[in-house]
């Protein structure tokens, strides 16, 4: 019985590599790693690229990177979850990032967030059930001169209020009701 | 000589600490000469009296009844001792806190309905069955506690050490392994 316990194999990797061979994005990622000579210290650069290509870092992708950089999977996972910028689950079709930096905060960013949370019925860090919108927060995007700022699909928008924010999100939410 | 007016109280706990107190065996007889047990699950007094010198509290603060009781005790007692891990750390009763706040309903459901072997049903008797608190708390989160005797339960010799210290007028100062949780 002990022998069977010890010989159990969980070979996920071959399947991932086989799947990867048919996906162009994995090829681009591998080329990027090659540019860094598959150096282990390029892990964060590689994760950036992977997220750019795939939108998020799913387990198989992390395992692929671990394999190519010859790093333990636990290390890759540890790094990917340490940094806020990396996300391990897919975002919605649109993103709304409310900056909660100090300047935005003293100018009412919390109220904007509360209003958006109430309207979308999701909390910060979550995605609406219809996958349309991910509501996120940032620790300061350095746009303090135009506070409070909200980033809609990557576009920094200055001097927001709960009203302007909800107005902006109109097209993205509420298909359900 | 006036005897020390001592009480012991049983809040949310398993009564193990009181059992351990009873394990003092013959020492209890010596104690009886020095202390007057004015309130305790071991004696038949219904109302917590005024002017208690020392109170040993067993158990965590789990329900409305415990909460009212501990405030009353604190108001009427000079020196309050958290007696055993449930009083000191909230211990096992507080494991339900991990399920999130306001879980009273689901805890009862699990215990009295899902876990019931026959005739399951939530205990509901307003005025008799006290409502569970949102969060189980150690005694010192609710009122000021003077001294702590950890242990699950505190072994009889620890209790004896504490009582000796108290009776000799010293502060109850347990040390080293006598302070062991668990």
């Amino acid at each position, binding site marked *: 019985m002990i022998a069977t*316990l*010890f010989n159990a*194999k*969980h*070979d*996920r*990797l071959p399947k991932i590599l086989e799947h990867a061979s048919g996906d162009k994005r994995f090829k681009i990622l591998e080329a990027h790693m090659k540019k860094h000579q598959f150096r282990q210290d390029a892990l964060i650069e590689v994760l950036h690229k992977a997220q750019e290509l795939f939108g998020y870092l799913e*387990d198989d992708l*992390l*395992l692929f990177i*671990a394999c190519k950089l010859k790093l*333990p*999977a*636990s*290390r*890759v*996972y*540890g790094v990917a*979850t*340490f940094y806020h910028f990396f996300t391990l689950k897919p975002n919605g079709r649109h993103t709304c990032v409310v900056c909660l930096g100090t300047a935005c905060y003293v100018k009412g960013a919390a109220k904007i967030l509360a209003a958006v949370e109430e309207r979308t019925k999701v909390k910060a860090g979550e995605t609406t059930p219809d996958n349309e919108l991910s509501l996120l927060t940032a620790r300061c995007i350095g746009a303090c001169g135009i506070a409070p700022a909200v980033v809609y699909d990557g576009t920094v928008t200055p001097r927001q209020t709960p009203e302007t924010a909800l107005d902006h999100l109109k097209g993205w939410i509420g298909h359900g009701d | 000589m006036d005897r020390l007016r001592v009480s012991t109280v049983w809040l949310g706990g398993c009564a193990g600490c009181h059992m351990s107190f009873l394990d003092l065996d013959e020492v209890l007889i010596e104690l009886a000469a020095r202390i007057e047990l004015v309130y305790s699950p071991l004696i038949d007094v219904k109302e917590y009296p005024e002017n208690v010198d020392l109170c040993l509290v067993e158990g965590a603060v789990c329900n409305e009844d415990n909460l009212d009781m501990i405030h009353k005790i604190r108001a009427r007692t000079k020196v309050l001792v*958290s007696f055993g*891990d449930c009083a*000191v*750390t*909230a*211990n*096992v009763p*507080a*494991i339900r*806190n*991990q*399920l*999130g706040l306001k879980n009273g309903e689901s805890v009862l459901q699990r215990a009295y309905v899902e876990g019931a072997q026959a005739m399951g049903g939530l205990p509901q008797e307003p005025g008799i069955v006290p409502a569970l608190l949102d*969060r189980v708390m*150690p005694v*010192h*989160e609710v009122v000021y*506690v003077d*001294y*702590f*005797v*950890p242990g*699950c339960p505190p072994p009889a010799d620890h209790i004896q050490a504490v009582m000796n210290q108290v009776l000799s007028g010293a502060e109850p100062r*347990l*040390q*080293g*392994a*006598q*302070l*062991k*949780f*668990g």
Partner: protein
Amino acid sequence: MAAKTLTIDGKQISADECATILEAAADAGITIPTLCHLEGVYDVGACRLCLVEVTGISKLLPACTTKVAEGMEIRTDTERLIRYRRMTLELLLAERNHVCAVCVANGHCELQTLAFNQGVDHVRYEYCFPKWEVDNSHALFGMDHNRCLLCTRCVRVCWHIEGAGTKNVSGRGAKARIISDLNQPWGTSDTCTKCGKCVMACPTGALFYKGSTNSEMERDRDKLEFIVTAREKKQWIA
């Protein structure tokens, strides 16, 4: 190798120049409390229990990572240090769910022992009561995150003694946790050699041999030192 002379708690001692304050103190028979330190693996200075005062330096220094220097005057027992140690232990006890009464390591736990040695008779901070799971998927061992201190001893033995790199830390802050491979059930790990070094290294009941129940979890920590000495010095001191 050159020796350095220094004083610890007023006691004059000499120590090897490569020695840490912790090693020098141990040689002189002075015990400094530690938690994340483990003989055989490198130190990280994370638990902050071994902080000491050094005359002329305003910051408190961890004894485990600070090397001795000539003429150092070190204090390990000031009122402030004792108070901070106690607070650190209280913070640890409040952080996760350390229910000693029902813990496999009750009576054999370094956190528990440190707590009573430092006079922690209760925890003044509100217990956090986080929800953590127990990973029982492994054939031989279990991992109870409720008892974990994030001392990373298991991570370090897995990396540096066993060399498998199965264990690491994911996330950060209070949400940090010990993971196996890609945060998967330990039992499904491809890299775990089932050597059990992590279990030997654990100071609390977080890692345990399966089947051990309340208070049964004793471990043989000397084995780790034995392996490291054998590997590095070619000396087999059983």
